[in-house]
C-alpha cells in the first residue's frame, strides 16, 4: 500500500508538470519528424541513419526528462522529511525512476518502434527494437538520475557532463544491436547483454543515489 501510494504521488507530481512529462515526448517526436527533412529523400539513406539518430535522440530526451529530477524535492524539504522519517530513500528513488520510465520511457520506446516502421517499412525490426528501447530508456534514466543527484544544486549541465561518458558503453552496445537487427544475427545476445547491465544498475544505483542525496543533506 505504501509503495502504491508513493507511486501514485510520483505519478501525480510528474503529470502535473507538463514540461517535465510531455515535454521530452514532444521533443522526441519533433526530432524524429525533423531528421528525415535533413536527408535526401532516398529511402536507403533514411534507413541507414535511422538507428543512430533514434539512439542519440533517446539519450538526449532522457537527459531532458531527468533535468532537476531531485531538485524540487530537495528545495521543498521532501528529501529531508524522508531522512527524518527513517523511510527508505533508495526505495523512493527506485520508485521515482520507475515512474519516470513508465510515463516517459515507455511512450518513447513505443514511438521509437512506430517511427522505425515508418523509416524501414519492417514490422519485425520494429518488434525487435522495442524491447531494446525499453531497456535503453531505463538505463539512460538511471544514469542521468545519478548525474543529477551528484550535481543536485549545481545545475543539470554539470550532471550531463559527468554522466554522458558513462552512457557511451550503452550506446556502443546499441550500435552493435543495430547491426544485429539489420543482419538478423546475435540479436538476443546483445539484448541479454543490455538487460544484464540493467539488472545490475536497477538495484545498485538507487542505493548509490540515495547515499549521494544524503551527502547533500548532511
Amino acid at each position: 500500500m505504501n509503495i502504491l501510494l508513493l507511486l501514485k504521488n510520483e505519478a501525480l507530481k510528474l503529470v502535473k508538470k507538463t514540461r517535465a512529462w510531455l515535454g521530452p515526448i514532444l521533443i522526441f517526436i519533433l526530432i524524429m519528424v525533423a531528421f528525415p527533412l535533413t536527408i535526401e529523400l532516398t529511402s536507403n539513406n533514411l534507413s541507414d541513419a535511422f538507428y543512430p539518430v533514434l539512439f542519440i535522440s533517446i539519450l538526449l530526451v532522457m537527459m531532458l526528462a531527468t533535468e532537476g529530477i531531485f531538485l524540487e524535492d530537495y528545495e521543498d524539504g521532501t528529501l529531508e522529511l524522508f531522512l527524518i522519517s527513517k523511510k527508505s530513500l533508495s526505495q523512493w528513488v527506485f520508485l521515482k525512476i520507475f515512474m519516470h520510465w513508465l510515463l516517459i520511457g515507455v511512450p518513447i520506446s513505443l514511438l521509437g518502434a512506430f517511427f522505425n516502421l515508418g523509416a524501414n517499412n519492417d514490422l519485425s525490426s520494429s518488434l525487435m527494437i522495442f524491447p531494446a528501447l525499453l531497456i535503453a530508456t531505463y538505463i539512460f534514466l538511471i544514469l542521468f538520475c545519478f548525474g543529477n543527484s551528484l550535481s543536485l544544486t549545481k545545475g543539470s549541465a554539470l550532471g550531463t557532463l559527468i554522466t554522458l561518458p558513462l552512457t557511451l558503453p550503452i550506446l556502443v552496445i546499441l550500435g552493435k544491436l543495430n547491426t544485429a537487427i539489420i543482419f538478423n544475427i546475435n540479436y538476443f545476445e546483445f539484448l541479454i547483454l543490455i538487460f544484464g547491465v540493467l539488472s545490475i544498475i536497477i538495484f545498485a544505483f538507487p542505493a548509490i543515489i540515495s547515499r549521494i542525496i544524503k551527502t547533500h543533506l548532511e
Partner: protein
Amino acid sequence: MLREILIIVIKKFIHQFASPKTYFYQVNRLYPWLLYISISIYISAIIWGLFFTPKDFVQGHSYRIIYFHVPASFVAQSLYAAMAISSAVFLIWRVKLAAYLARSIAPVGAMVTFIALVSGSIWGIPTWGTWWEWDARITSTLILFIMYLGLISLHNSFNNFDKADKLFSYLAIIGFVQIPIIKKSVDWWSSLHQPASITISDKPSIDPSMLYPLFMAMIGFAGLVACIVILSSKVQIYIREKNKNWVKDYV
C-alpha cells in the same frame, strides 16, 4: 598471537601514514630520490629505444614513439584505478588523505591521458594514414579524458571540501567501469588499434630487443608521473590543511 601483533603493526602504520602531516614529510624525503631515479631510468630507456634497437619491419622508425605513447596510455589507466581505489578507501575508512590523493590524481590523469591521445594521433599518421580514427580504443581513451575533466569540474563546483570529496569518490568509483572497457576494447571490437602486445597470461608478441627498453620506459615514466602526483597532493594538503599549525610552521 603473531597475527594480532601483525594487525596492530599494520593498523599503526596505516594510522600514522594516513596522517597528512606524516605523508607530507615522508614524501618530501622520498621525492628527490624518486625524481632522479625515474629521470635516469626514462632517459636511459629513451636512448636505448631510439638509438640501439632495430627498426620495425613494417613501421620503420616511426614505431619508436612507442617509448612515449605506451607508457602514457598505461599510466593514464593506472592512475584512474589508483584514484578509484583511493576514493573507495576514503568512503569506507574515512581516510581524508585518500580523498586528497584521489583529487590530486585527477588533473595529472587528465594530462597523461591527453599525452596518450596526442602521441597516439601522431603515431597514427605514418601507421594508419590518419590523425584520428573513431576506433574503440581511441574513443574510449577520449572518454577517459572527458571523465577526468568531469571529475575535476564536479569537485571544483563545491566549496565544501568534505561534500566535494564524497561526491567525487562516488563518481570515481562508478567511472571505474570504463577501465576494463578501455583495456579490452581492442579484443572485444574489431579495431584499427593493435591488440595488447604485453599481457600477463601470454608471452609478449614484441621482440625482446624492443621490449626491455619499453619496460624501462614504462617504469621511468610511471616514476615521473608519481613525482607529479606527489607535488599535486602536496598542493591539496596546503589547501586543505592551511589552518593547521604544522603547515604554518613548515611554510
